[in-house]
């Protein structure tokens, strides 16, 4: 490991622009002739649009145009799509209702766009929007799962009778039922996995520009995957042809999944830029983020675990209702199915698993992937069941887990996943040591003597990320492949540009990706530039989500680097009159082993481009590309333990300690990895203690601002104690696993297990607010 190579906690290259206010986010971009868009949104959860009168608005100062959903239909702009096909247990396909970017006839959630005003200034667009008169006929609404599935519920889409999108199963139902019949003990739980809003701090934004003579569009947008955006906008939405559309995702202020999707506002901005013949900018405000960004989670689950007389798990049976909101967002169908039920085996050897997932429409914002996407929900089910079982069976929760840990790898679970490697005992040992698990009873007794309730909660999570082998996900219904691309360009002077299909919106790729190059060539990271986020510069790539940028994106860079190195060695050997097999690369030099002969990288690069003296038949230049398709998911796993103290008088829970022991394989930059864990833990803890979307029964979003939706703040969280155990991932040459989502996947169960342990009542829903905890204590 060099000072800037793999394994070094290198300070981030990108930070200087962010800490000096020189970051360049979409809303910071200005174009000549820019106009501003403001959307008119439905105030009703479910209604027919009787009429839209734009005549007064058109007369308002500065108005350039007012466009409606009907005009989108007239221009044959496509409906939004869902890119993952799920088949119900009866063999039928999922029931997808039409989702137009602006509703021409029916609105199905509060906040759905029906029209847009384009004006010279943002304020003028906002003022004119007030003058657009939309006449609605209100319809009854189904605001949650229970309301959606009951008899006589309002029907959202004619395509989906009973509001059911699909009724999907996985696993062997008969064998699982048999395991329950012969069980010595059965543990069961009803679980609500609360609905969350991702709330990246940068609101979504889009700037669209149309060049009429070239028939060419440019879209600057807050995207985690600009190439996917371009593909979807061209192939499905009929707005621009792929080669006539440039999508740029510059600095993006957080995503957490919510910026994967291609939203109505980007579509409308592009379309409108051609309609009005001027560049169009839309920047969402926070309320629009609450009303339109894809939400996360929202499951109702009944889960049961069967044990034999030795406390070995023999079966797991799960039935989950998943709320997908009013429309099917881009990857929404896969989240409660292949990203959820395939992880229900957790870290345990469970011979029989059966899960049924029924996804339904409701009159709410569409739900899609949010940090963890299905895996936090699975982990919460398994780890709450384990803790509950330990209490019911009166055994130590750590020991019950150990008894059931998978210890042989590879391990094929009954729910598709084949775990490649792991050491679950090692991470649990590390976490128990870090929190002094053995000393807990004494601490609990001391707390009790001071009138406080003390509890400890374990969560041993596993997740599948680094998505994903294209062939495998294709066979499961994915509409895209999930490989990644890279290109390494060595410039004539020996500096290097790495073009990647991954996209950084906080993850630090501009540093970690350079570290690989520094490691391979022994050059400083200052000699390397990472290029990403622009479809005009970078070849097609799949973007960043599902903790894939290291395992898939960085491996693609490695593959391209290997080709560059092979060619560079040939050139060096030719220049040095040596055999290429004798060339080694050290400190930016190509050396002939066992001699003092060497040639520096810039000279090799220059030779490649002058092409005056290359080996016979060799093409000039030093630039190589690679597409890398992973062979398996990676399986990060770890143990989180949380110790909490509850004030029985107020119901307030306070952290005593939170420890995390993760196995992410090889760490490229431990500082950045730990930062990812911190952020994930905060989101998992936020779900457990603070965050929760509230709709009233009419479908009004009650929590639509930071005044009403409790974001974790600095004084809500503890400092975390992190440690790492290591099993190298055998599935990629770097041995890395994903680290971006683990915290959010494992944390919430640890917190709830700790509080329920403290209060002696296992019935507690998230978010475990002081009010809920107080009632759980006092009834």
């Amino acid at each position, binding site marked *: 490991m060099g000072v800037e190579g793999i394994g070094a906690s290198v*300070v*981030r290259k*990108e*930070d*200087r*622009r*962010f*800490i*000096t*206010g*020189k*970051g*360049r*986010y979409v*809303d*910071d971009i*200005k174009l000549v002739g820019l106009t501003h868009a403001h959307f008119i949104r439905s105030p009703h959860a479910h209604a027919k649009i009787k009429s839209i009168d734009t005549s007064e608005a058109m007369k308002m100062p500065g108005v350039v145009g007012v466009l409606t959903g009907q005009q989108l239909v007239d221009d044959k702009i496509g409906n939004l799509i869902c890119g993952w096909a799920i088949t119900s247990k009866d063999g039928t396909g999922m029931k997808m209702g039409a989702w137009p970017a602006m509703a021409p006839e029916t609105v199905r959630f509060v906040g759905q766009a029906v029209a847009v005003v384009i004006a010279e200034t943002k*304020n003028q667009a906002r003022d004119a929007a007030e003058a657009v008169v939309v006449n609605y006929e209100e319809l009854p609404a189904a605001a949650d799962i229970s309301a959606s599935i009951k008899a006589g519920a309002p029907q959202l889409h004619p395509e989906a009778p009973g509001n059911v999108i699909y009724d999907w199963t996985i696993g062997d139902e008969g064998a699982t039922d048999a395991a329950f019949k012969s069980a010595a003990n059965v543990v069961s739980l009803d679980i609500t996995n609360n609905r969350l809003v*991702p*709330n*990246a*701090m*940068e*609101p979504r934004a889009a700037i669209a520009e149309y060049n009429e003579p070239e028939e060419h569009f440019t879209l600057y947008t807050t995207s985690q995957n600009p190439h996917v955006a371009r593909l979807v906008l061209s192939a499905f939405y009929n707005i621009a042809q792929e080669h006539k559309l440039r999508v740029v995702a510059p*600095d*993006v*202020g*957080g995503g*957490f999944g919510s910026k994967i999707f291609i939203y109505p506002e980007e579509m409308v901005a592009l379309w409108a830029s051609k309609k009005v013949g001027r560049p169009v900018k839309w920047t969402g*405000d*926070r*309320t629009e983020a609450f009303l339109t960004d894809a939400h996360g989670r929202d499951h109702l689950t009944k889960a049961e675990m069967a044990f034999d007389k030795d406390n070995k798990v023999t079966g797991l049976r799960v039935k989950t209702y998943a709320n997908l909101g009013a429309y099917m967002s881009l990857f929404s169908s896969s989240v409660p199915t292949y990203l959820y039920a395939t992880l229900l085996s957790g870290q345990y050897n469970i011979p029989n698993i059966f899960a049924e997932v029924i996804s339904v429409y409701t009159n709410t914002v569409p739900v899609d992937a949010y940090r963890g996407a299905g895996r936090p929900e699975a982990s919460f089910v398994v780890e709450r069941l384990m803790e509950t079982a330990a209490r019911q069976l009166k055994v130590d929760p750590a020991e019950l887990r150990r008894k059931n840990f998978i210890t042989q790898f590879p391990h094929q679970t009954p729910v598709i996943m084949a775990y490649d490697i792991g050491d679950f005992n090692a991470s649990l040992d590390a976490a128990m040591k870090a929190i002094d698990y053995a000393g807990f009873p004494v601490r609990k007794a001391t707390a009790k003597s001071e009138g406080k309730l003390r509890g400890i909660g374990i969560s041993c999570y596993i997740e599948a990320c680094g998505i994903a082998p294209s062939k495998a996900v294709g066979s499961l219904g994915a509409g895209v492949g999930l490989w990644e691309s890279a290109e390494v360009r060595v410039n004539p002077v020996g500096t290097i540009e790495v073009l990647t299909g991954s996209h950084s*919106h*906080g*993850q*630090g790729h501009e540093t970690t990706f350079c570290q690989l190059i520094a490691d391979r060539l022994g050059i400083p990271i200052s000699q390397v530039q990472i290029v990403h986020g622009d479809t005009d510069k970078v070849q097609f790539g799949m973007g960043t989500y599902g903790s894939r940028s290291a395992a898939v994106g960085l491996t693609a860079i490695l593959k391209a680097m290997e080709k560059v190195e092979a060619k560079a060695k040939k050139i060096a050997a030719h220049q040095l009159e040596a055999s290429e097999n004798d060339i080694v690369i050290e400190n930016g030099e190509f050396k002939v082993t066992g001699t003092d002969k060497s040639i520096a990288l810039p000279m090799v690069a220059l030779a490649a481009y002058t092409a005056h003296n290359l080996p016979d038949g060799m093409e000039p230049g030093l630039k190589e590309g690679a597409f890398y398709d992973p062979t398996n998911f990676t399986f990060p796993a770890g143990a989180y333990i949380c110790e909490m103290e509850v004030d029985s008088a107020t119901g307030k829970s306070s952290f005593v300690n939170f420890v995390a022991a993760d196995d992410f394989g090889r760490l490229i930059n431990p*500082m*950045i990895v*730990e*930062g990812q864990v*911190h*952020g*994930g*833990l*905060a*989101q998992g803890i936020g779900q457990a203690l603070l965050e929760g979307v509230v709709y009233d029964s009419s479908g009004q979003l009650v929590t639509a*601002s*930071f*005044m009403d939706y409790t*974001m*974790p*703040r*600095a*004084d809500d*969280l503890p*400092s*975390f104690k992190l440690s790492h155990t290591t099993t190298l991932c055998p599935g990629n040459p770097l041995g890395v696993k994903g680290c971006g989502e683990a*915290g959010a996947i494992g944390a919430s169960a640890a917190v709830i297990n700790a509080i329920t342990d403290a209060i002696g009542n296992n019935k507690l829903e998230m978010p475990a607010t002081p009010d809920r905890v107080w009632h759980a204590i006092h009834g």
Partner: protein
Amino acid sequence: MSTVKLTVNGKAVSAEVEDRTLLVHLLRENLNLTGTHVGCDTSQCGACVVHIDGRAVKSCTVLAGQAAGSSVTTIEGIAKGDELHPMQAAFRDNHGLQCGYCTPGMIMSAIDIVHRHSGKLDEETVRHELEGNICRCTGYHNIVKSVLDAAGRMKIAQAAE
């Protein structure tokens, strides 16, 4: 429309703005100082924090006209040329930022926190004082570390002056 005259990052500036214009929009739209961000519409998130006459203020909560005659410092105005402010350096060295969007507001708030506590800060105080700044990326762990580190650096810098 009104003409608003104020000092921003040490320079006298003048801008023609609608009366309803917020200071943050004057900074971003009229002066192209886009380091100051807007993350919410309810004065909760703190991405827009600047200093007005030396005090940390959410610039989305101040009309541009109210800032007339004031001296405003933004994130663009705290480094001395190439030399970062100790708070900026501490955020970089402690990985106190990820996506960078909340960072300018965090740094401006944090400088004010250190000033108000005359260099005497502990973790609990920093966490309490940062209540008006929301970060979704870092879990605050490294932000708190950065502020405590910077408090030490600022004390040393002050002593040296």
